[in-house]
């Protein structure tokens, strides 16, 4: 095992063993790793299996179910656009068009330079301020296409400061 690999495993184990709640499960462990790294490398699946006494299949079954898990490193920046019904009625689709244009994407996914990951969110929870987007965990309401474009275009140029720089 290279030094890098063992350092990664160490971070994963650290995340798994320092969970805040009184018990841990496969799901809680996966969430803890996702929080620490921003994604689930295969080492995470193995470590969670070892920690929970299950098989990699047991762990993969859980990991593949929840749509917030990633299996490749995220971009340095993560942009989430709400496509929930309130935001939909308030123009979310036009905002998605604009954000995709700004990023050169056709769907949700990662830009080719790995700079930005775009994710659609079913409801960001700030419907009263719809339409809503979230850029690197900062929520922004009352969006217009122009504002969204600005928020995203700004990212492209700046350096990444997202917590999950791993693998970037």
């Amino acid at each position, binding site marked *: 095992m290279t030094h890098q690999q063992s350092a990664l495993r160490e971070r994963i184990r650290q995340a798994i063993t320092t969970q805040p709640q009184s018990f841990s499960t496969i799901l809680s462990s996966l969430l803890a790793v996702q929080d620490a790294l921003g994604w689930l490398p*295969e080492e995470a699946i193995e470590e969670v299996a070892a920690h929970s006494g299950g098989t990699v299949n047991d762990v993969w079954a859980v990991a593949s179910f929840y749509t917030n898990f990633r299996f490749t490193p995220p971009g340095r920046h993560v942009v989430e656009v709400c496509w*929930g*019904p309130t935001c939909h009625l308030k123009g979310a*689709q036009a905002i998605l068009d604009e954000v995709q244009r700004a990023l050169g994407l056709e769907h949700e996914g990662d830009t080719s330079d790995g700079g930005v990951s775009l994710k659609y969110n*079913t*409801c960001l929870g700030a419907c009263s301020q719809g339409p809503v987007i979230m850029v690197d965990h900062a929520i922004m309401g009352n969006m217009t296409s122009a504002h969204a474009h600005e928020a995203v275009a700004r990212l492209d140029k700046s350096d990444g400061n997202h917590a999950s720089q791993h693998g970037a």
Partner: protein
Amino acid sequence: MANTYDALASEARKRWEGLEKGPQPWIRVGTAICGKAAGALETLEALKAELGRRDINAVISQVGCLGLCFAEPLVDITKPGHPRVFLKNVTPEVVPALVESYLAGDRPDPGLALGTLGGNIPGVPSLEDLPQWKRQVRVATRNCGTIDPGDIHHYIAHGGFAGLARALTEMQPPQVLQEVTQSGLRGRGGAAFPTGTKWSFLARSNVSPKYILVNCEEGDPGAFNDKGILESDPFTLIEGCIIAGYATGASHGYVFIRHGHEGPIHLTRQAIAQARSLGLVGQNILGSKFSFEMDVVLTGESYVSGEETALMEAMEGKRAMPRSRPPFPAAVGLWGKPSNINNVKTISYVPEIIARGAKWFAGIGTEKSKGTAIICFSGAIKYPGMYEVPFGLTIRQVVEEIGGGVPGGKQLKLLQTGGPLGGVLGAAKLDTVLDFDAMASAGAILGSGGIIVGDETVCAVDLTRNLVAFCQFESCGKCFPCRLGMTHLLEVLERIIAGEGRPADLELMKAIGQTMAVGSLCGHGQLGFNPVQSGLQAFAEDYKMHLEQKRCPTGACNRLFHKPTRTRPVASGGWYARRDYVHH
């Protein structure tokens, strides 16, 4: 025992008075998610900078959501010798003007002043006169926007934990249970099941341990009141949960929140820790024989994990796929032990019901819907927000008087209520009374309390496509009528929208819907046809125009519709695609 609570209460009141009647201005800024989305964190920074620049001393607190989301960023100032005054839409740009007019000076800028509470300031209305406030009866949300959700003393200073103290010292568990039953409280998570009856199932079991599970999955788009309560007053939920444990003989309470909702998660965890440090959670609560542990448990992104049996699967760390019932959770629940699942709002009413009595609560609302509804307004509405109103108002009163109607001189076309498994109501149903049963017979459910308003520019088919795409994306996949039915419904809707609808498509959708209703394991599939069915009923014209004239009545459908391409389980980029994987 009562002394212990009295001691806590007098200490808390002392601290509160220090703030409210202290020598310095006390500034509260609403920084729940709605505030943040409107820029409240920037406002907070600008305020601190401006006060520093002008050398003005003030105490600044971050509070949750007052419910008046339309006024965000909302700043609330109490100055010595002045009433509490609320200032609306305080963006960083207007902070200097605000400081000048009301912190350096004594006259709040009338353009910024929303209203006062507890006294008058010339030229500023009383909040009590605004319909957005006057029409409310705030029970579960009584402290929202007033207290710091990060300080348990604020809650105690407002009578917090008096209900628990009363239950533990004056009442036996069956009496507490009876009080909740007599209050007429019904579940606010969707099905409106009587809460006292549900608790009695758990109370009857002799197996231990028993669990109280609080559902804050809140996956319904358009609903934000569960997270709103946790971000504004997590203590009322904690107190309610402990009382539920006492009434039913449970020893543990778990609050189930979706990963990623950082505000509610952090604040609830912190609130539990504070309650524990004061002896309100843990062993021998308030010196009594009763012990109760609490914790926050997270789920990944999955709408169906809010279904009560899927919730238990997720808590056990598995895929959130519903279980067959029976056995019911009260018999075989979390880790096979008896469990009771309630929504955040349901539990948040309990402290006031115990403190003020069942009669008081049952005096609010209608014959079969007691208490209040916590409405989340969003969409084409002038005053979006979170409003707690008594049952019995008409939907028209709520929409027009509180919500201020549709902005921009447009006509109201529809209301989407009860989340994606709820329905759409046309303007003709505005006089329906806010009541679980009246709304159900009108073809929509109150559900979680989300009301999304659509104006005349909305096409019912387009909105329905959005709801069905959600239901399709979120189907857990366990049973085929739901998994394939949703996919098929979406396909049909998309071809109708593309102008390629076939004459038999409406019948086809109804047949799919019937199969889903009878052949699905959980409510997701059983109710998943609701948005289509209610839309077909109220907006047949919209469908007809798409089918016969091949065009959209409002043009809303004339654009590419983006929806997630990810599937559940994830089908690409994942591990199982790796053939070379060998476990070592």
